[in-house]
């Protein structure tokens, strides 16, 4: 067996290496770990085959321990960034061609991530010119996808992780222990606010994860930069607070009070009183549409455009009190959980729900959709939790039963699921496509959970309870790399102002909200056909004859002229209908 020299190691005798594990020392480079086990061929053949089969089934998860390597196999290049947490593990496979082999191929899964779907079929294009044009277009799209995938190498941060040693389980570590073993700045992200008087609280982070808004049921509202712990404002509105919500920037937030919704600025000054929104129980802000969506205690549902202050749509759901609300961040559709175990999805364009689905056989308690708009988790009073694919509603992907009914449920950007049950918080990972056997983290609060929110771009879960607010460290929960054009935690004032204007300029119209957000970019085939047909009919042929006789000839309504006029009107109308 010929051994190709490796870049980082001196060449050893091939007979020796066959039976030895090659483990370069960790001091070689701090973050690079090489685990390469080479096994003699006849041993464990079946096991090897199984492993390969497993790899083919889900290419995301490749066991890192056994890397089969022989000079005959093609070199594999591995993803440097581990999605599911872990040290940067770079596996070097010897280059079969010591000369320059060309560009590094991009892993399929990366391309998949950046793909905008399949291209156009060339079959239908008749003329050569147009075919060429489309080919060029497709080529450009492909190139853009490739470039975007390649640009992933520039991402600076890695996901967090918590790796346990043998015999340990991740749930055994308390927040204190976790905070003690991370760096100082991260340790400050675990904190607790004891607010006994005005609870239970609700908490929400801004879109860039920098600011936090707290609202106590008894009227206490506070906004602050939770990283630097700088308070923006703290007021008591002297009324019941049902819900709170940041608006498009951190200088404004809405509070659903006893009767109406109020808008405050970040110094606590009341800017507006929205009397159009009455008895609101839950609010969601749709940032790209500048819409404040509210659900009322009496079952009304309204969308208010905050840039112009007008109601876009307002419907009565006829489903009773609405207290479980979530938005799908990818298509801005609102989801409600109802007491009959039904989940409904609403858009301002239709009076009827877009989706009405029986999810549980008992009343729902909580509902959330993950930031990627793929999974929906629902919890019901019968202690069951179901995970659904929102894009393709049918059978649930997962069906869990927990010890007690979850009052709140929340997805993180990396699809970790946090459940709040009484005074216990549990976080699960890999629970959507696979069935999670046990919790990833568990935490016990002093009070009862009332609301939870994963902080965007941070490994932090904010838990609002009846006795205050707790910020928990959940390693691996957040998306490590933000896009400064969308949400920037390090935004300056000028940047915020400019971003606000840009965002207002490209405010998406409310009537584009639908289940499929890409519909606007697709070809409108049926209506085009209809149009052509209608035009043909309208243009070329006489209008159809209609037997028209007036029903009754009242006094003063007669006269041949009038009759003729009426006849004409009816015929015109018939023509229009045919259009």
């Amino acid at each position, binding site marked *: 067996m010929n051994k190709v020299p490796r870049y980082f190691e001196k060449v050893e005798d091939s007979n020796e290496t066959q039976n030895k594990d090659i483990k370069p020392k960790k001091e070689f480079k701090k973050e690079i770990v090489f685990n390469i086990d080479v096994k003699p061929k006849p041993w464990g053949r079946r096991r090897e085959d199984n492993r390969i089969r497993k790899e083919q089934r889900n290419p995301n998860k490749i066991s890192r321990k056994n890397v089969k390597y022989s000079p005959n196999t093609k070199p594999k290049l591995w993803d440097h960034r581990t999605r599911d*947490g872990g040290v940067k593990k770079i596996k070097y496979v010897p280059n079969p061609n010591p000369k320059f082999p060309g560009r590094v191929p991009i892993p399929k899964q990366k391309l998949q*991530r*950046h793909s*905008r779907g399949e291209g156009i079929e060339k079959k239908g294009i008749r003329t050569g010119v147009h075919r060429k044009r489309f080919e060029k277009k497709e080529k450009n799209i492909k190139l853009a996808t490739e470039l*975007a995938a390649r640009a*992933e190498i*520039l*991402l*600076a*941060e*890695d*996901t*967090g*992780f*918590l*790796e346990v*040693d043998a015999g340990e389980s991740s749930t055994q570590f308390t927040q204190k*222990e976790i905070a003690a*073993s*991370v*760096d100082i*700045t*991260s340790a400050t*992200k675990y904190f607790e606010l004891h607010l006994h008087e005005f609870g239970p609280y609700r908490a929400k982070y801004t879109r860039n994860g920098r600011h936090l808004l707290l609202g106590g049921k008894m009227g206490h509202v506070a906004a602050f930069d939770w990283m630097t712990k700088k308070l923006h404002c703290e007021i008591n509105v002297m009324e019941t607070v049902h819900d709170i919500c940041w608006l498009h920037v951190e200088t404004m937030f809405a509070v659903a009070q006893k009767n109406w919704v109020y808008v405050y600025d970040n110094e606590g000054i009341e800017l507006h009183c929205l009397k159009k929104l009455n008895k609101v129980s839950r609010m969601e802000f749709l940032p*790209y549409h500048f819409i404040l969506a509210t659900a009322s205690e009496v079952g009304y549902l309204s969308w208010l455009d905050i840039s112009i202050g007008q109601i876009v749509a307002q419907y009565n759901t006829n489903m009773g009190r609405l207290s479980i609300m979530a938005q799908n*961040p*990818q298509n801005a559709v609102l989801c409600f959980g109802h007491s009959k175990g039904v989940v409904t999805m609403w858009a301002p364009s239709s009076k009827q729900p877009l989706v009405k689905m029986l999810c549980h056989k008992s009343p729902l308690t909580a509902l959330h959709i993950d*930031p*990627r*708009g793929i999974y929906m988790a629902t919890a019901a009073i019968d202690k069951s939790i179901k995970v659904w694919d929102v894009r393709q509603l049918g059978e649930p992907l997962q069906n869990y039963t927990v010890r007690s009914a979850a009052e709140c449920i929340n997805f993180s950007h990396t699809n970790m699921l946090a459940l709040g049950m009484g005074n216990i918080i549990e976080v699960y990972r890999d629970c959507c496509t696979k069935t999670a056997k046990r919790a990833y983290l568990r935490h016990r609060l002093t009070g009862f959970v009332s609301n939870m929110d994963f902080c965007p*771009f*941070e*490994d932090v879960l904010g838990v609002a309870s009846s006795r205050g607010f707790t910020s928990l*460290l959940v*390693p691996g929960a957040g*998306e*490590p*790399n*933000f*896009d*400064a*054009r*969308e949400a920037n*935690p*390090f935004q300056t004032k000028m940047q915020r102002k400019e971003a606000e204007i840009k965002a207002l*300029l*490209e*405010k*998406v*119209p409310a009537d*584009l909200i639908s289940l499929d*957000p*890409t*519909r*606007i*970019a697709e070809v409108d085939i049926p209506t085009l056909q209809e149009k052509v047909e209608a035009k043909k009919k309208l*243009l*070329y*042929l*006489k209008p159809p004859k209609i037997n028209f006789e007036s029903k009754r000839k009242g006094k003063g309504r007669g006269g041949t002229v009038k009759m003729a006029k009426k006849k004409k009107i009816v015929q015109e109308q018939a023509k229009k209908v045919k259009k």
Partner: protein
Amino acid sequence: MKVKVINRNPDDYLRETKRNIHKVPRNFDPSLHPFEAAREYVRALNAVKLERVFAKPFVASLDGHRDGISCMGKHPQMLSFLISGAYDGEIRMWDVPQQMCLKDFVAHNGVVRGITFTNTGNNFITIGDDKLIKTWKTDNSWDEKDDIPIKTIPNKTVLTSITHHYKQSIFATCGEICQLWEDTRNESIKKFKWGVSSLHDVKFNPIETHVLSACCSDSSIILYDIRDVGPVHKVVMKMKTNSVAWNPLEAFVFTAANEDYNLYSFDTRNLRRPINVHMDHVSAVIDLDYSPTGKEFVSGSYDKTIRIFETSKGHSRDVYHTKRMQRLTCIKWSLDNKYILSSSDEMNIRIWKTKASEKLGVLKPRERVALNYSEVLKEKYASHPQIKRIARHRQVPKHVYNAQRELRMMKDKIKRKDANRRAHSKKGQVPFEAERKKSVISVQT
């Protein structure tokens, strides 16, 4: 246990000094960029609205002539140089960017019918109603005696149009017959004649330089080969063609401006059926000129409007008009593809941008990138009804608007009648007739 949580060092994300630009870390993961299509659509909508807002095509007008302008000549090399001739026999030389008249003199007794530059651009040749062909020096200095031509050739009959060969020192004139001249000689070297009717426009092909087209008053277009003795082809159309322009990049394509309000693009290899009919004018089309890219052409009409057509499209991309502009007499597309020069009855030459909303002058790189991006967006979402409506909307003068409506009604009526006739007669009795075939009566060789 090994733990790591996300911890960002602010130094990596904040600029060091206030003089630096802000750091903008990007992550192209599509899940971080929701509503991609919808936001693009809104951007496209904004872009197309801005395009209409900035659509101010009129740049300047050159005034000074004391009578209507009959013809113009653009220099083959100097972009800024323009010569115009008027109905009173006056010729003016212009510096276009300075909007200044360099020189003016009376060249002919009567109307100046045509101006053409020689292939080198050193001289230009004019013809007038006084039956003289005069050659002048392209010189804008005042020192020498200006109104003396280098050469004057008297002709027996009235001349209507003149064109110069693109490579050799040969030019052609037309009137009762088509004649070929050499720059240095006083006698015509060749004469072409087909039938008895007179010719009113003649144009050399810029690529196949020995091919010549002429418009005939018997509503036909004749093609000549100057190496040959007689004419090559003749297309007879239903109505008279006023002017012809050759595509500067596709040697076999020419477009004819017709009296029936339409323009017809012909492929010389198959003259029986024009490759495209360009409609939109509401009165006779007087003149047209191709852009140097060969992708577009501009036409001036008797309806007091200028329209820009794409060669492959049947309808105009843009229409220019002002309240003061009267019947168009001559139109030229500048050789840098940026401006259109139009001359009209009311003694003015007007300068227009070819792209109405284009920003003139130097663009900053960011500006250019933004413009390119919005261009692509506009193209991508062009067929959306809202965007299409805004992009297509043009304010036209009342008389044009009314005439358009009238024409549409007439066309619809004819279509409807045909359809009804077809519906109530035997199959095949009333055949469909292609719009492109309607206007051509016959092709003779």
